[in-house]
């Protein structure tokens, strides 16, 4: 069973439907017992980092997710959930994250060309970094995924598995040992996105 962490940020309807579509047994939950008994964890999130961080830490869920991830349980963060895996964010002041991965969250306006639109919204192609991640078992380099974000993970070279070009290379996905994250929305990225979720969810895979 896969636990989708429900900490009150964003709507989990599409994520839950997409996991069902790839045949995964997923439960949307904030129950520590269920999270601890799950085989894998997905940390979703849409919205502002500070609000999400407050909710995750104040509910005690941050502690449980961190503990389970450190014990080796596969964890996938999506969008803001991916950003939460890092040490800190500079969205409206400095806020701490889960510190499961090395790096920090910065505005894309720091790095992209000034004539580009913010948020980075729409379909963009994945460029793999280093060896092919097990998360990309069923997809190819150059496949398109759907992004909606204004902040990105910086200084995460040691976990970077894919980038997307938006006048410069922006972090698209990360993965290190049992911890993974997608800046894009696999649940909105058509068959490519479903194949990423399938690779994460399948037994004997990640």
């Amino acid at each position, binding site marked *: 069973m896969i636990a989708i962490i429900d900490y009150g940020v964003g*709507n989990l*309807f*599409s994520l839950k*439907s*997409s996991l*069902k*579509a790839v045949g995964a047994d997923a439960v949307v939950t904030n129950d520590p017992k269920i999270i601890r008994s799950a085989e894998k964890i997905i940390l979703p999130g*849409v*919205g502002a980092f500070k609000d999400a961080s407050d909710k995750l830490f104040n509910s005690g869920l941050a502690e449980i997710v961190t503990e389970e991830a450190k014990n080796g349980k596969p964890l996938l963060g999506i969008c803001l959930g991916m950003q939460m895996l890092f040490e800190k964010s500079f969205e409206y002041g400095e806020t701490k994250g889960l510190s499961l991965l090395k790096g920090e969250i910065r505005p894309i306006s720091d790095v992209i060309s000034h004539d580009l*639109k*913010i*948020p*980075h*919204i*729409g*379909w*963009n192609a994945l460029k793999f970094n280093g060896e092919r991640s097990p998360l990309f078992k069923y997809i190819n380099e150059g496949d*398109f995924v*759907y*992004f*909606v974000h204004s902040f990105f993970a910086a200084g995460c070279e040691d976990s970077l598995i894919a980038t997307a*070009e*938006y*006048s410069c290379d922006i972090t698209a996905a990360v993965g290190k040992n049992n911890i993974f994250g997608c800046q894009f929305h696999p*649940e*909105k*990225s*058509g*068959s490519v*996105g*479903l194949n990423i979720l399938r690779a994460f969810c399948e037994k004997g895979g990640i």
Partner: protein
Amino acid sequence: MTTKRIIPCLDVKNGRVVKGVNFEGLNDVSSPVELAKYYSDNGADELVFYDITASFEQRKLFSDILCEVASTIFIPLTVGGGINTVDDFDRVLKCGADKVSVNSGAIRNPNLVYEAAKLYGDQCVVLSVDVKRVDGVFRVFAKGGRENTGMEAIEWIKKCVGNGAGEIVVNSIDTDGVKKGFDLEMLDAVCNAVSVPVIASGGAGNKQHFTELFKTLPKVDAGLAASIFHFGEVDIIDLKKELNQNGICMRL
């Protein structure tokens, strides 16, 4: 780079897609779920569902259908029609919509865009605006294009973007249904006024019109159409291949 987007728009009334469609291999040509799946499997980058019903009961049916569509296809979904309050946003977002399009609702209640953007984020709020030239000035029309509000369109769009609209759908009443191409002059004026994504609507009659749109106005992010896709006059995969051959970045 992000690709340009091709977006089919489906009008739904009493649980059925109106105007019908003309595709081979579809058992039920007016089933929103079957059509959404068809488009999702055949190159659409995003879908717009427009609720053209009025009664409470019909609205409930629309929500049920939306839930079914959102659990069947996994590309971005925008929902419009009958969005007058933040509760309307909540209702369609809970059914799996990613973005919500407001038109007359924003004209009646100028705080709606601001309130919704604060709650759900700018990326969630799409301003749809029906524009027509009156004595050489771009004016905003309400009630499906029947009533001149007297507002100057560019000022209205700028105001809504300032309030948090994250994307603009520009429907040119002047070119809509004429099938002689998008309203490039109007779209250029909008693109030069705002920095959020602009979606062109109204006037597409063939593939070349989309090439012309993206070549002439590189700032336009997406092209939206209904009947030319529904009646098979333009096949989305063919269209995207042709655009790609013309040097326009598409998701193939």
